């Protein structure tokens, strides 16, 4: 039974961040730019928490004729996006200096609008539009610091992203021909029925979204770009934006259709290559943010394994897809906290310092899947499902591979913690920065359990 779309709330969710950059037109509105940073994702958050799903909103006058929608899968991604951008925005308000604040906020607003919009998109053109907006505007966040390192990272980011976008455009065009429809919901069936074309479509989507999701061999930009951005931007890049690639896979790959088992197998292998392979280069890094970037590649590898499993076992796709969304939600929130922690300072009081390390440890332990953390839920469910699925490729090696992946995570988290221990200096930071980080930890460890779709 479809619900009525809450039109005003939907419009506000996308338009608020989209129009927010207009505040940059006048220098005197600088204060408003900063103050609004954490508030931009709030309409989307309300939408994700309160609106009754599923709903579909037809906008036949927009672009090529648009359809926006919210279902349980999208709600989970919308929650993650809105929560993380909100806490990172609060953090950013206390992080950014006056210099180039306006430029940063312009790109922040546009990137956020893209990230939220693509979650709501129900048709190819809308999805591609918001995805592109996020990619292009994200460039401004990556190169913001203006260092040689940032500019190089920006260039690699942009070139790879552009090639990825072209793969997506070709995929969407072919899918449009095969499905004779712009709806994303029609892609999977058309791909399966499309013969040789279907293979090409699936390959283009796998690679095109693979760039964003940091699939091995398409990942080169990621350890360069994620760390050089200002810390709050790193958090959303690694926590939320990277998940757009995952969502893209879930919406466009022929999940739940018969005959894609070899593809599923390929993706499982590729996923494990990422999950395990990222540990070594990651462990050799000296910058905690770069370690986290490699850890993101590793964790996204595990999510790719799950997507591969859903392709290989179409009958179990209905139970695997929510699991993938749960994993994404867990990882996004935890990874966001870990990134935000890099920009913190040590308080003077010993008690506060102890508290700081305690709170710092929570998302790290969550990533490792320790009991009572979001990671325990997500990774436990992953193990349970993968190990009980009959006929999965690599079935015999799966327990070992999953243990190895846990070890890889442990190596990276330990390296990160060690580097952070050495790096954090006593000093003072703006209240908003503390508030943003604390709120992020709270979301990851406590509020997570209250979110719809969890448990």
């Amino acid at each position, binding site marked *: 039974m479809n619900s009525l779309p809450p039109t005003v709330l939907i419009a506000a969710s996308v338009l608020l961040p989209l129009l927010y950059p207009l505040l940059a037109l006048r220098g005197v509105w600088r204060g408003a730019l900063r103050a609004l940073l954490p508030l931009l994702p709030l309409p989307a958050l309300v939408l994700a928490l309160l609106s009754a799903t599923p709903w579909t909103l037809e906008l036949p006058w927009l672009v090529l004729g648009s359809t926006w929608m919210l279902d349980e899968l999208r709600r989970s991604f919308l929650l993650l996006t809105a929560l993380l951008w909100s806490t990172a925005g609060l953090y950013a308000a206390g992080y950014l200096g006056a210099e180039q604040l306006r*430029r940063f906020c312009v790109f922040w607003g546009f990137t956020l609008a893209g990230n939220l919009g693509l979650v709501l998109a129900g048709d190819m053109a809308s999805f591609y539009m918001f995805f592109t907006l996020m990619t*292009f505007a994200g460039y401004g966040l990556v190169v913001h610091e203006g260092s040689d390192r940032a500019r190089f990272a920006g260039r690699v980011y942009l070139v790879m992203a552009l090639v990825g976008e072209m793969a997506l455009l*070709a995929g969407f065009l*072919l899918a449009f021909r095969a499905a004779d429809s712009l709806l994303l919901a029609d892609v999977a069936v058309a791909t399966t029925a499309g013969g040789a074309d279907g293979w090409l479509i699936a390959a283009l989507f796998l690679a095109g979204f693979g760039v964003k999701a940091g699939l091995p061999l398409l990942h080169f930009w990621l350890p360069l770009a994620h760390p050089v951005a200002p810390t709050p931007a790193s958090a959303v890049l690694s926590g939320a934006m990277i998940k757009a690639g995952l969502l893209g896979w879930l919406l466009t790959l022929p999940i739940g259709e018969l005959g894609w088992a070899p593809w599923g197998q390929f993706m499982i292998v590729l996923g494990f290559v990422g999950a395990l392979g990222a540990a070594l280069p990651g462990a050799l890094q000296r910058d905690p943010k770069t370690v986290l970037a490699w850890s993101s590649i590793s964790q996204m590898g595990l999510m790719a394994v799950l997507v591969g499993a859903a392709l290989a076992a179409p009958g179990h796709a209905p139970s695997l897809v929510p699991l993938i969304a749960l994993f994404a939600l867990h990882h996004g929130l935890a990874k966001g906290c870990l990134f935000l922690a890099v920009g913190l300072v040590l308080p003077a009081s010993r008690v506060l310092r102890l508290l700081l390390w305690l709170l710092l440890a929570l998302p790290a332990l969550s990533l490792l899947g320790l009991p009572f953390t979001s990671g325990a839920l997500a990774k436990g469910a992953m193990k349970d499902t993968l190990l009980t699925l009959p006929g999965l490729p690599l079935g015999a090696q799966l327990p070992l591979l999953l243990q190895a992946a846990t070890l890889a995570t442990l190596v990276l988290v330990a390296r990160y913690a060690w580097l952070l221990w050495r790096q954090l200096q006593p000093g003072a930071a703006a209240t908003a920065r503390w508030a943003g980080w604390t709120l992020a930890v709270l979301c990851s460890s406590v509020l997570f359990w209250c979110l719809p779709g969890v448990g």
Partner: protein
Amino acid sequence: MSLTALLPILALLSSLLAAVVIFALPESSHRLRTLVNLLAAVLKLGIVAAMTWGVFRGVDFSVSFSMLPGVSFMLRADALAMLFAGLSAVLWLLTTIYAVGYLEDSPNRSRFFGFFSLCVASTMGIALAGNLFTFFLFYEMLTLSTYPLVVHRGTARALQAGRNYIIYTLGGGVVLLLGIAWLHGLAGDLAFRETGHFQSVDPALHGQLTLVFVLLVAGLGVKAGMFPVHGWLPQAMVAPAPVSALLHAVAVVKAGAFGIVRVVYDIFGIDFAYRQGLLEPLAWLAAFTVLYGSLRALWQLDLKRRLAFSTISQVSYIILGVTLFGPLGTVGGLVHLLHQGIMKITLFFCAGNYAETLGVHRVDELDGAGARMPATSIAFTAAALGMIGVPPLAGFVTKWTLGAGALAAQMEWVVLVLLLSSLLNAAYFLPIVYRLWFLPVAAPWPEERRWGRLETNAWLFWPPLVTMLLLVLVGLLAPTAFSPLSWAQLIAVRMYLP
């Protein structure tokens, strides 16, 4: 004379009379000239709007009289005519405003605006021409009225460029005339008709008709800037910015592309051209031009020159769309006739603003210009992203429709060309955007001028912002009635009727 016959003539006369009046005005009467210019432009916009509404409702605007035995002068407003006339009317008004600011205090303004109006009258004639003969008349009038604009500055470079321009375009004109005369001998005086004239024709004529097709397309290809007869176009960018803007967006290159559309659909008929295998070679040539123009643009350091090579590439999108058999491809080509115009005129307006305000002509002098001229730079950025094909801007709608059209026509390789061209567009536009916003100002501006509160002269400030708004809206609201996309669909539906 009935209103339906009067309106096409009035649309033509509005700019023609303006030209006469302006030539007659003394050089010093700046205000009066501006007033005449703007009044005529607004009047024409009104007439064209009225005719567009009429054509939408199915009214037949046409007028014709015999010139020689067997040759008639014929004006007729069909949906395709209004596509081009609408573009011309809207952009003329904006370019006039822009030119008034651009040529402030420069000599020979009377001559300039006189020929400027003549040039627009020619494009109106080209749009409304009802047969090949009338088309040719205005096509050549366009050549002659744009020459003085290209050489307006009178420098040695400008004169050289003008000479080249005349040689190329008159040469193209001769080839075109040859084709028209041959066709006249074969089939008589052919009025443009939405499904063409040769759906059923004596097979004995196929060989000759193919040769005629080649002649006509080759003659028109010169103005459309198709490889290998594009050489005049990059040189002609020595003209003042408003002229370049008009040349690249509406007048000259579009006249060539529009002519090819007319020849393929309304003379030969798309069915005939398809069955005779005439489309495929043209598609290859257009595709090559698309890539060639982009590749050459990569290496240009002069901003206007880079834009000129980009035009060579982008105009061939229109031709490419024409060659994709099927309504979607046609729609893609036709819609780009407008979209390219809106985007390219924005870019040239901005290039002119940088030149007039900061004295900047080269790409590598633009570092940090975004902070000094934010409005202009926002417009430039939007247009550049549009050219790359970033949704929801105008260029995306084109690219999507062309791509879908190519797939529908089973010409998958065209999609590859489109994607490659997008990447090349990104490669030569994004570095400019990067310089505008991310690099600090490297050196003092070569020749900075200041005008009060705005970043530049108000006459120069607003036109690119308006065209930027247009290039966002035509993409964002593409499915609404009277958008370029909807209008192109209307035309395509009529063209593929049996």
